[in-house]
């Protein structure tokens, strides 16, 4: 109980700082924090799908992209940006619901490839769609509320929603069902969970958050174009942030996004080597910290926490990555889970 109240206090202090910062600092720090908020929100969105329903999507940028286009079109009609972003996000959500019946037939890595290709197909389509500006994309009108601090607030509101929404869901009946689907689809189907529905709902909410991110991003960049909107790398950076931070937790994606964003900004001054160093560091972190950065936080917080067995169940996910160097079976297969996922492939 004590830790819970502590983290709530911590969150309030954190939010206070976020609100106050634009009054004290201007310019560059805001830019960094804005980028951070966008990355956090996108990572949370991906985390919701992956950690809570086992949906390894590699085309997550698709939803941000669709929402981005819709936001631009709606906003250019003279509708306020905030409403446009919401409409955009709802469109993404609707789109996710529409494609779900097709995508949900695919499992694990097939789902990943399916989403990836869907995203690619959209990129190609928008590249050749004259009304969508082809490869040049669309430009957002200079809306009256446009300013760095407004974009900053908008991004943090979205980051806040992206963090709180999964939190609410996980506590709910839906969240429980989603977790069971993640662990074993067939079994949860056999004990009465409408798995297709659950997956679709989680996917749709995840798409909604991604849509909000897409809307905010376009509100700040003022331009949307196919390579940005449907970029494979964007999707992968979200994956990266989540895995780096620790899957299945709410703090993990925040940590991961913070590290990735700081890395990006810290290495800006050695442009020739920045990506190389980033890549090497990511590999090292994943090898030596297989459960993500969250495990460091846990280690640090360990002395603070008193053992209490009567409280609510502990955080349910241990992080998923394990290094199998001291695995108990000498002949063991290292990607068992992957094999099972593929073998249980549905027609």
């Amino acid at each position, binding site marked *: 109980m004590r830790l819970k109240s502590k983290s709530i206090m911590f969150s309030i202090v954190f939010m206070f700082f976020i609100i106050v910062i634009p009054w004290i600092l201007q310019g560059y720090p805001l830019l960094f924090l804005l980028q951070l908020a966008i990355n956090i929100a996108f990572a949370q969105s991906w985390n919701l799908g992956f950690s809570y329903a086992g949906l*390894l999507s590699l085309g997550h940028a698709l939803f941000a992209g669709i929402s981005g286009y819709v936001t631009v079109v709606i906003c250019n009609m003279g509708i306020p940006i905030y409403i446009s972003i919401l409409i955009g996000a709802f469109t993404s959500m609707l789109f996710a619901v529409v494609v779900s019946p097709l995508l949900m037939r695919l499992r694990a890595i097939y789902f990943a490839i399916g989403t990836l*290709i869907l995203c690619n197909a959209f990129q190609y389509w928008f590249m050749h769609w004259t009304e969508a500006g082809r490869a040049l994309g669309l430009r957002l009108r200079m809306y009256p509320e446009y300013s760095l601090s407004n974009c900053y607030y908008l991004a943090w509101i979205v980051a806040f929603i992206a963090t709180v929404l999964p939190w609410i869901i996980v506590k709910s009946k839906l969240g429980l069902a989603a977790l069971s689907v993640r662990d074993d689809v067939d079994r949860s189907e056999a004990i009465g969970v409408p798995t297709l529905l659950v997956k679709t709902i989680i996917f749709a909410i995840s798409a909604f958050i991604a849509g909000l991110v897409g809307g905010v991003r376009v509100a700040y960049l003022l331009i949307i174009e196919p390579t940005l909107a449907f970029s494979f790398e964007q999707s*992968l950076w979200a994956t990266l942030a989540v895995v780096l931070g620790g899957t299945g937790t709410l703090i993990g994606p925040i940590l991961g996004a913070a590290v990735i964003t700081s890395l990006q900004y810290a290495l800006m001054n050695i442009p020739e080597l920045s990506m190389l160093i980033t890549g090497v560091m990511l*590999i090292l972190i994943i090898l030596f910290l297989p459960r993500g950065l969250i495990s460091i936080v846990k280690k640090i917080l360990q002395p603070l926490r008193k053992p209490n067995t009567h409280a609510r169940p502990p955080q349910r996910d241990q992080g998923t990555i394990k290094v199998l160097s001291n695995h108990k079976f000498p002949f*063991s297969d290292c990607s068992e889970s992957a094999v099972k996922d593929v073998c249980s492939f549905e027609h």
Partner: protein
Amino acid sequence: MSPSFLLQLLINGILLGGLYALLGSGLSLCFGVMKFFNILHGSFTLLSCYFIYSIFTSTGLDPIIASVILIPAYFFVGFCLRRYLIGRLATLDAVLIVGFSLTTVLRNIVLLIWGARPRGVYTSYSMLAFDVLGGVRISFIYLLCFIISLVGLFSLHLVLKKTFLGIAIRAVAQDPEMSSAFGVNPSLIKDLTFGISLSFIALTGGLMSTIYSFDPTLEIVFLTKAICVVVLGGLGSVLGTIVGGVVLGLAECFAGIAGAQYQAFVGTVIFLIIVLIKPKGFFGLYVE
């Protein structure tokens, strides 16, 4: 539209398809045996092109011979990579992330060593062409690549069907846990399979370097083409890979009739349809 024109398209499509099949074979093997989506496929193919380029420009060695020399080196790299890095990761997302990070690292290494300028390998025979019946012309290099691809794929097929290693590989593909009960070490077999997969990449890179001029951005093209071939043909089947490659090659050639701008896209369209309608492709896994 004359018959010879159609025949020309057909021949071009099939020859191109052979190359695509070789490109897809490494990925297919990886997927069939390890259930591992090798995101590094494109990067390694590109790297192979660059190695061949360097060997060719410094020693003048024929690119195809050079690629044969590169095969053992690639096999060793693949074996070590699987054994000491990828094999140590337990989950799909970790493998994916490490793969992605490695792709980034490799791309930057290529940029540091060779720079971003488009490169190409020019040999005495790279522009040869000859007439066959009815005004249809065949490019020597495409034909050569096609033959080498077929030889490569056929030997892979033989290895999988006839040798002990092949049987072990198929056993692991089917059921890693069971195969370990029969004295097969699945981890070792997977390391070897990844090595073989990379050997095919080395060969593909060698052939590609004689046909295309390449720059560091081509990795993603190689990867998407390979994914297309593999999913078209079914993951983890040699015959399927050949069919997938030829279908893709033919589709690209014949799409030109409808309009040149559809050519690069037709693969994706077929791919999407296949994924959505028959997710296992034309052919299933080795196990079936």
